[in-house]
């Protein structure tokens, strides 16, 4: 143990402090029997750590800071998409595979509504957003009434089957209405600029705007859930439906509102993300998986957990791509596995 500490500190100090004069570490493997501070043999992790440090060494401070910004921004975008799922899956207990479709619908709304809004109301980015969200609330309300209200008492398998069916229906409707082409959405003029970053790069203002929307949404959700009467009723309803009902609260209506809010948040996420992600068939499916990862890591039903999990995934994904590109695809799932081993209920279990 002592030897390993010495080895680690010596190498880490020499190699990982971005010292340009440090000799390359690749090839110099840890001494036999060396152990990492957590007690495992270094043999397996050694070469991995070596590549890791090697890459860190080549990264200068500005690049590192930009990458941190990228990680933060990606994490916040993830939270924006996943928070609607946390509401529906975490609080109402319905496994909603169609969540990705709501995200897709949002993106297509950003593409399709903009010319309509420009024609009738004279345009405006925020007017389009507002109309999109209103439509989404209506859609969510109707969907809950027609489909989801029958699912609360059912098994998870039936929920999965029905919401998977909804994905197919939404995809087919999209194909009939808009076609299968890829479309670009232009951000509004006042957000179209970019800020210089280092000597080579610029950072699009619109990405900062997305981060702002995410933060505002996170705060608003936190406020509603922990500080208002509505939030209290929702939390109570998720713990004991019958008891809340017997207190004279219309739980059916309440759930309909929560579901509509969840759909509206997903649609908003799609609309806000459309200018950077562009709009294309099946765009919801890739988002869906990582959303579930967020909800599972964060702890089912916890908004605080979802935010933390999103940021964590953003960090792991970003630095995974830079430092361990060979394993970038699986790192997020490794993170999930590790966290579930450590805390089987996720970081924050709603209670």
């Amino acid at each position, binding site marked *: 143990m002592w030897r390993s500490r010495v080895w680690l500190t010596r190498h880490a100090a020499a190699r990982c402090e971005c010292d340009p004069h440090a000799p390359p570490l690749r090839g110099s493997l840890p001494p036999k029997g060396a152990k990492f501070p957590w007690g495992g043999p270094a043999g397996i992790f050694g070469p991995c750590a070596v590549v890791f440090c090697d890459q860190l060494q080549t990264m200068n401070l500005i*690049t590192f800071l930009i990458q941190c910004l990228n990680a933060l921004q*990606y994490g916040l975008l993830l939270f924006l998409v996943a928070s609607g799922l946390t509401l529906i899956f975490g609080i109402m207990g319905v496994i909603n595979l169609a969540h990705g479709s709501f995200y897709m619908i949002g993106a297509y709304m950003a593409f399709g509504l903009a010319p309509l809004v420009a024609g009738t109301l004279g345009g405006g980015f925020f007017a389009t957003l507002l109309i999109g969200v209103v439509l989404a609330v209506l859609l969510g309300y109707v969907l809950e009434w027609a489909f989801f209200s029958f699912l609360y008492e059912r098994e998870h398998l039936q929920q999965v089957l029905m919401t998977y069916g909804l994905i197919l229906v939404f995809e087919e409707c999209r194909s009939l209405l808009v076609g299968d082409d890829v479309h*670009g959405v232009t951000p509004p003029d006042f957000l179209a600029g970019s800020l210089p970053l280092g000597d*080579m790069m610029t950072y699009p203002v619109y990405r900062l705007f997305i981060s702002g929307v995410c933060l505002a949404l996170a705060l608003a959700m936190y406020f509603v859930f922990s500080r208002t009467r509505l939030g209290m009723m929702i939390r109570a309803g998720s713990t004991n439906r019958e008891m809340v009902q017997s207190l004279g609260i219309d739980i059916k209506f309440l759930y309909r509102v929560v579901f509509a809010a969840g759909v509206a948040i997903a649609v908003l996420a799609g609309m806000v993300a459309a200018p950077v992600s*562009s709009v294309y068939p099946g765009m919801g499916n890739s988002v869906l998986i990582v959303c579930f990862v967020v909800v599972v890591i964060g702890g089912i039903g916890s908004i605080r957990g979802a935010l933390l999990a999103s940021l964590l995934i953003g960090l792991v994904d970003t630095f995974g791509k830079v430092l361990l590109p060979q394993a970038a695809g699986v790192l997020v799932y490794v993170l999930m596995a590790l966290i579930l081993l450590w805390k089987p209920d996720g970081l924050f279990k709603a209670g």
Partner: protein
Amino acid sequence: MKTFQKTLIAAAAVVLSTAAMAQTQVKLKVGLMLPYTGTYAALGNAIENGFRLYVAEQGGKLAGRELEFFKVDDESAPPKATDNVNKLVKRDQVDVLIGSVHSGVAMAMAKVAKDTNTLLIVPNGGADAITGPMCAPNIFRSSFSNWQPGFAMGEVAAKKGAKTAVTITWKYAAGDESVGGFKEAFEKGGGKVVKQLTLPFPNEEFQVLLTEIAAAKPDAVYTFFAGASAVKFVKDYAAAGLKKNIPLYGPGFITDGTLEAQGESAEGLFTTLHYADSLNTKRDNEFRLSYAKTYKLQPDVYAVQGYDAAQMLAIGLKATNGDVSKKAEFAAALEKAKIDSPRGPFMISKAHNPVQDFYLRQVSNKENKMVNVAVKGLADPARGCKM
């Protein structure tokens, strides 16, 4: 009386079934395995449109045989590919397979086609191996090998005076091979590929790797993406401010069928491909007019590849009088043929990959305008093909 009725029914059944058999013998079963959903959906549709256009121009028949289509959506998912091909080969018992776009899926198709000796024409998927180690007398390609456009661009980039380059692509066969072709020609021309960035398919968070490019400051960037992800990459590259500092090069797929969505961010990009929007030959103009009239859409390279897949099938069928079981004669006819493609006439190599001109194109006004011929009659080296 009863026995009479029974015989009558039996006779009717026999007549009906032979009629049905005759019917299936006449119609050639064509299995289309293409992506109709996902990031490559538009490409799959363009290929089918092109294929059907040629068949329609021949009056709905190839070498006197009517066609019956069987369609499977492959979702660009290699894990499902083998099952999907088997649906067409075993369940529908198709005579010829057409597909697919994704290189990994096309590889799985080639494997099944080789094992079951089914005729296969690949209308896009450029995996080098299909006309390399896996080449077979019954496997053909109407498109390109991933190596080809990459190699052409490597020559162009070196001639433009770039000394260092960074490559960025998805970590799968098509990306690796495209970058491999570029690297081979670029380093032969005196350049050096200093960094090879990859991300898993179909991941689209490019911002991280764009930051890496900015930190490396190369003379040029070579990229391979296609479909919706090509749109996003080109937009992100411009939005990150890299476009004005480091020229972006790539195979034509990064700007084909995507220009409408890419808008201003693609303006001025140089790409290499075996097709361009302004070839202005009689053959191409006729094709474009006819395609636009039929589908109310402008054709792209994928439509041309679908169209040529049908042409190649027609040539083979003609030589064998519509009998696809004569594989050797089918192949011999194609190896000799000069295919009159809208892209310009091309030949089929010994390994059954097109030997064709590669154009240098530049994006201007949402069109991939031809600049010049970058490499004439470029043939894939067909490494590993024993045929």
